């Protein structure tokens, strides 16, 4: 090894890359442009505010040079940002508070720089990238069959939706149809996933607001769903079950009993949560009228999912662009009218009930048949046939070493994940590995819209609003 990797920059050139010329650097906007007055965090919705000039450290951090050595001395280490005091619009001093990236209530490694005037929030700046995993680059190094293992770890609370989106995009490029049983299994798993994800959401929302017992109750019901996942896919999370061509394996014997168990035990749990929270005066005080975002702002910022529905727009991708046979099942799309945290809570509770309704219908009407397409160029042959047929062995070998080649093309596919529109833009150049995979994570837009939701709120509302936006940082940073 030539030089040990430096963990801060992590650059270790693979030997074959050492002699390549460095790519031309992209044009960097002039330093003056970066430091000019700007306030487009509220663009389109509020008048721009006066902000102070930033120092030469770059616009990411709000530094005050004269205070830096004092704090460095106090903390014994160099800090990345600092407390900054300067006159605000009303003449009072404002203070910059840093929340995160290590914080119990930021739902992951999200960092918020909040500029406060007393207890009122004047400006919020989300800083992300603390979970950036380079998954889009990794996707270019994995075959299409390996793709679900990569994307399933992006939004780790709804892994089935990520796998489904990737598989649907690949299948559109390939031009293969999956059999009805595979479609029904996919719907079953994704809807139970929606219930499991919303259960975590209600648990963490309650815990963040102070109803600590919600954390234990939410996980109690989620364990039922995870036990079901483990029986079907072998794993509690990050399953790699929904693959291009169908699903990895058929449902095990006795799956109807497992589903019946979920349908028997989860609705009473949801009823318990509603008893505890719906009319709870403390919960209502903390959530009604808090974190409001209007439908126009949602569209401008790309906010979708329960947040958009709570703002009054009846937009659900399962209705607008149905996929995987979901239009065969009856369900309702709950919408709110206030766009505040309480409405999002009600919408998600109702979505859980509707998802269970879909699960019941799938369990009753599960069609018989194959669990994956019989196109041999895509699907590996059954393991038993490998002993009997040379052709099966060769197919298996080529599919798992090289992967199947996908015709050149580009496609954008989206599914309705528990957080919103989860989209994937997949470009293939005819090889066995994607040329480019871009994942449009719903939480990326929601984190960007946080300043809009938090405009002129109190600092105590930050946590409630952030929890109601339900960000998953794996989706944001990828």
């Amino acid at each position, binding site marked *: 090894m030539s030089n040990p990797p430096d963990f801060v920059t992590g650059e270790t050139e693979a030997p074959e890359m050492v002699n390549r010329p460095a790519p031309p650097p992209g044009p960097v906007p002039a330093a003056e442009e970066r430091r000019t007055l700007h306030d487009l965090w509220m663009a389109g919705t509020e008048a721009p505010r006066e902000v102070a000039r930033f120092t030469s450290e770059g616009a990411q951090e709000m530094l005050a040079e004269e205070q830096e050595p004092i704090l460095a001395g106090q903390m014994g*280490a160099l800090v990345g940002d600092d407390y900054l005091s300067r006159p605000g619009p009303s003449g009072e001093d404002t203070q910059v508070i840093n929340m995160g990236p290590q914080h119990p209530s930021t739902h992951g490694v999200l960092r918020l720089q909040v500029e406060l005037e007393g207890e009122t929030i004047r400006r919020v700046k989300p800083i992300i*990238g603390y979970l950036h*995993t*380079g998954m889009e680059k990794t996707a270019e190094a994995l075959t299409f069959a390996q793709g679900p293992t990569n994307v399933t770890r992006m939004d*780790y*609370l709804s892994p089935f939706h990520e796998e489904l989106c990737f598989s649907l995009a690949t299948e559109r490029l390939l031009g293969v149809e999956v059999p009805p049983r595979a479609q029904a299994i996919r719907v079953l798993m994704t809807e139970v996933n929606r219930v499991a994800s919303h259960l975590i959401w209600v648990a963490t929302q309650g815990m963040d607001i102070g109803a600590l017992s919600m954390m234990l109750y939410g*996980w109690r019901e989620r364990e039922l769903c995870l036990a079901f996942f483990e029986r079907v896919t072998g794993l509690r999370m990050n399953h790699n079950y929904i693959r291009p061509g169908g699903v990895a394996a058929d449902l095990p014997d006795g799956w109807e009993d497992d589903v019946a168990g979920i349908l028997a035990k989860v609705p009473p749990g949801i009823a318990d949560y509603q008893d505890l929270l719906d009319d709870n005066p403390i919960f209502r005080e903390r959530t009604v009228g808090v974190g409001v975002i209007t439908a126009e702002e949602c569209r401008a910022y790309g906010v979708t999912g329960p947040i958009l529905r709570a703002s009054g727009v009846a937009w659900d991708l399962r209705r607008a662009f149905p996929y995987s046979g979901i239009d065969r099942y009856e369900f309702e799309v709950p919408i709110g009218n206030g766009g505040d945290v309480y409405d999002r809570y009600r919408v998600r509770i109702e979505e859980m009930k509707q998802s269970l309704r879909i699960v019941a219908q799938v369990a009753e009407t599960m069609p018989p048949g194959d669990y994956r397409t019989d196109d041999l160029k895509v699907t590996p042959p059954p393991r038993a046939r490998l002993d009997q047929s040379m052709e099966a062995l060769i197919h298996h070998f080529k599919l798992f070493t090289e992967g199947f080649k996908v015709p050149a093309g580009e496609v954008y596919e989206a599914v309705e994940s528990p957080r919103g529109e989860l989209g994937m833009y997949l470009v293939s150049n005819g090889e066995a590995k994607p040329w480019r995979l871009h994942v449009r994570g719903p939480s990326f837009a929601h984190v960007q819209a946080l300043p809009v939701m938090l405009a002129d709120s109190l600092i105590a509302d930050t946590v409630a609003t952030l929890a109601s936006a339900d960000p998953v940082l794996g989706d944001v940073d990828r």
Partner: protein
Amino acid sequence: MAGPANPSGFLTTTLQKAVGWARTRSMWPATFGLACCAIEMMATGAAHYDLGRFGMEVFRASPRQADLMIVAGRVSQKMAPVLRQIYDQMSDPKWVISMGACASTGGMFNNYALVQGVDQVVPVDVYVPGCPPGPQSLMHGILTLQEKIRSGEIAR
């Protein structure tokens, strides 16, 4: 008596055992959940798998009040200095469990963005493999660490 299990060689065996016993009861973890492993860590703390029976259900947000840092999830290059800062802020005695494949070795993401193993940043006592490790695996890791502390293998 000095030896491999007791490098300081100063404490008598009974007192060392008592200290080790006290340290392992109610070791409070610092919240360092990063990604998918954090969800399994929360599941371990929840009612079904119950870390509370080991006195560990209180995840302290402030590193000053915690003794155990469970690095649960993938550590990106941007997060590595933060990780080190939190570790430095914890007071002795402190231990680190590296939970999951990404924290132990970089996992399936051998690329520019991740630190390939959190032991490049902080010293690790126990590695828990899995992607993500189920609550039983994490508890096995925690109990292994407790065993190591009680037996004096980690004398801190």
